[in-house]
């Protein structure tokens, strides 16, 4: 076994910022090989060419979450990115590096992450076990499958990439964002936690504000799937009595979908619409549909699934 290496000269186009100069681009040339990570490239630029370049990086092994930035427009950890891999992917030896989106840049590639930290603190990111358990007087064991499920969401390294890439975060100040939901769900679903009611008050309304665009899933360097945590959080809706408008609409919608599939195996759009929004909203939107010339389709009845009993069986959840 031998290891083939390759070298190339790469141009790093870095978006810098300082309060005095504002934003500006600066280019650096560097020779790299097959193994050079972007963090190593930045370190060499700083040590050999320009000591003023500012960026965050520490562990260089994707576990501390410091080095989130945009590389060729992609939100990535710099340490988890091999320079030549990006050169090959984009077919160019110019690599563009910018700070993460959404957060305010404070110096070069360093952004202000207070917004991110505040979101995490809001979800009470710690276990609140029973008093006797905490004092060591009782034991509350965890099943292996529970450990696996929770550990998936507990691996968050607070890198901020998901929040920086999330469209709902930008649009909706009530939405906590993907990372906070992954963190929140990890504790919500922990059988040893005792403040479930409080957590639901914090998490549930926000969980219905996600647009399922899978951007967080796509950028997460630890494969956490925040959107999955959000979906699982929504499943707790039936436990909550006080429902905000967003929760109520969301719940009606999912119930309407469930009922439609249970009835015909397919989605009857008109029925789903009516059940979710009620008659008044539906009439308003009907008018827009009419203007668009879509009404003729609304009147078409779709053939239901013949083997509907099979559908009902697999959705009933009960299996003898």
């Amino acid at each position, binding site marked *: *076994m*031998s*290891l083939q*290496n390759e070298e190339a000269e790469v141009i790093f186009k870095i978006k810098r910022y*300082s*309060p*005095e100069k504002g934003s500006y681009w600066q280019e650096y040339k560097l020779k790299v090989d*097959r*193994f050079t*990570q972007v963090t*190593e490239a930045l*370190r060499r630029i*700083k*040590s*050999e060419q320009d*000591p*003023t*370049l*500012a*960026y*965050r*990086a*520490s*562990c*260089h*092994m*994707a*576990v*501390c*979450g*410091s080095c989130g930035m945009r590389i060729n427009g992609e939100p990535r950890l710099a340490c*988890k990115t*091999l320079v030549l891999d990006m050169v090959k992917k984009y077919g160019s030896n110019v690599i563009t590096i910018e700070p993460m989106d959404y957060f305010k840049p*404070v*110096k*070069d590639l*360093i952004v202000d*992450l207070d917004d991110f*930290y505040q979101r995490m*603190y809001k979800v*009470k*990111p*710690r*276990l609140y*076990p029973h008093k006797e*358990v*905490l004092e*060591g007087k009782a034991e509350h*064991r*965890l*099943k*292996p499958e529970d*450990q696996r499920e929770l*550990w998936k969401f*507990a*691996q968050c*390294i*607070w890198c901020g990439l998901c929040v920086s890439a999330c469209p709902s975060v930008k649009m909706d100040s009530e939405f906590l964002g993907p990372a906070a939901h992954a963190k929140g769900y990890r*504790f919500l679903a*922990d059988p040893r936690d005792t403040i479930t009611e409080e957590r639901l008050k914090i998490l549930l309304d926000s969980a219905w504000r996600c647009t399922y665009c899978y951007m967080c899933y796509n950028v997460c360097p630890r494969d956490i799937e925040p959107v999955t945590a959000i979906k699982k959080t929504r499943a707790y809706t039936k436990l909550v009595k006080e429902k905000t408008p967003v929760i109520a609409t969301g719940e009606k919608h999912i119930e309407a979908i469930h009922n439609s599939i249970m009835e015909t195996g397919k989605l009857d759009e008109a029925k789903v619409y009516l059940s979710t929004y009620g008659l008044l909203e539906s009439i308003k939107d009907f008018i827009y549909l009419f203007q668009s010339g879509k009404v003729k389709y609304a009147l078409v009845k779709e053939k239901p699934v013949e083997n509907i009993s099979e559908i009902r069986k697999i959705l009933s959840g009960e299996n003898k």
Partner: protein
Amino acid sequence: MEKVSYDAVVVGAGLAGLMAAHEIASAGYSVAVISKVFPTRSHSSAAEGGIAAYIPGNSDPNDSPDYMAYDTIKGGDYLVDQDAAELLAYKSGEIVNLLERWGTLFNRQPDGRIAVRYFGGQTYPRTRFVGDKTGMALLHTVYERTSGLGNVDFYFEWFAWELVRDESRVRGVIAFDMRNMLPVFFKAKAIVMASGGMGMLYRHTTNSYINTGDGYAMALRAGVALKDPEFVQFHPTALYPSDILISEAARGEGAVLRNAKGERFMARYAPKKLDLAPRDIVSRAILTEIKEGRGFPGGYVGLDLTHLGEDYIKERLALAYEAAKNFAGVDATKEMIPVRPAQHYYMGGIDVDITGKNSDLIGLFAAGEAACVSVHGANRLGSNSLLETLVFGRETGKTVVEFLKGYTEPSSDIDKEAEKAVDSAYEVIKSESGVHFGEILEKLRDVMWDYVGVFRDENGLKTALSEIMKLREEAKKVYVLDKSKVYNTEFYNALELKNMLDLALVIAQSALNRKESRGAHYRLDYPERDDQNWLKHTIAYLRGNTVEIGYKPVKMTKWKPEARVY
């Protein structure tokens, strides 16, 4: 200069620092935690393999805390203070159970108890783990918990620069707010140094970029001794070329080392334990193989996982598999992983006793990698570091609480001392020309790796000393180009360089003085362990440009030194 007052200030927000802070704050005292990074970025997060613990009812029936202490003492080549090893072992179960109750998601056995596995140097399996990311899991749990206490103030992205002291006591620490270079004098009754390790002194290290040994240098400059500074641990399997740690757990789970000929060469160096021999033995074995021409071109050997099967690798060795794939483009289910040794851990540190107290400066405490108790002696066993940070972080916290109870306020005014510390930092900003920090740093890292590394000898160490002295002289000309006050990383890098040059001198001198080989300190010219003359701790002070070395006896309780054969 702005001043703030706290009962205790903890420098470093890794596991040791946070545990100490948690303990002190839970007793009702005000605590400030200063860290140059956000707490979850601390290097504790990089620890992978696990945490050793003897848990009654959940350990091998033949195991015991005494056995665990014995393994630790033997692994440390008998330089371990045996009362410290006993404390570590006896408290291990308690601390793991505590962290479990706080929510750390340890891997489980089918009946729900915490799972356990082998690790290098252990006679019975003791290591508890959270996948391959035990350090990260523990760090996050402890930070989550500590951040929920009302009386801990976190100052993250603040650079602690200098201790402020009077004739006998430490009075506080100067730190800069990295966002705007604002210097603040943190007045404190007690200071806990928990600033971690110093890997960046070496060309090859598994450590993070932030591990520049700041705490050791601050202590040295405040007239405090380091204990056993010559003992630097090298990890045998760091991924080539990024030096990312490939956990010992891989070998614990069945991976084997092969040279370029495909031989399992460990049979020649550790016939009984083979690939699971302690780290120093494996490191020297690999470097010998490479030196004698049986390594791959480029200087590395292979870590072979291919016989373990894809499912097993992906479940138990996810991080090693990912690391090889993400950081070297290698598929470990099909190919060997290229590895070589790299600096990994620092056994030396601020001289403290088993309670975490330093005797040179009243009010100064230390815990974690920054401290030398000494619980690891000449060589640290895997999964003992995480344990040390938690056990001694907590014990030190308890000691601080007792100290604070009996504290009387001193009367002298030390504001002038504080101002001096800030001025010493600003020197690099004032100059308009000179040398960039990078020019000196790169040379220092090569000097340390070449001459104060895995293999040492008199000529090499003398060369190292003279090179380091030259670099210290040159470093007086360091200046920063970036004159801005906002996140001036160049400024902090220059200060880190000063710290590294202080520490490097002490390490090289202490290594030169110790004319024997013990644990991780290997002298080609003195290859045997010499208990007659050298069963003692090195105590080193930095006085200007001179290292003043003395010695202290090792505390022995139950175990007499034996030959270290595996």
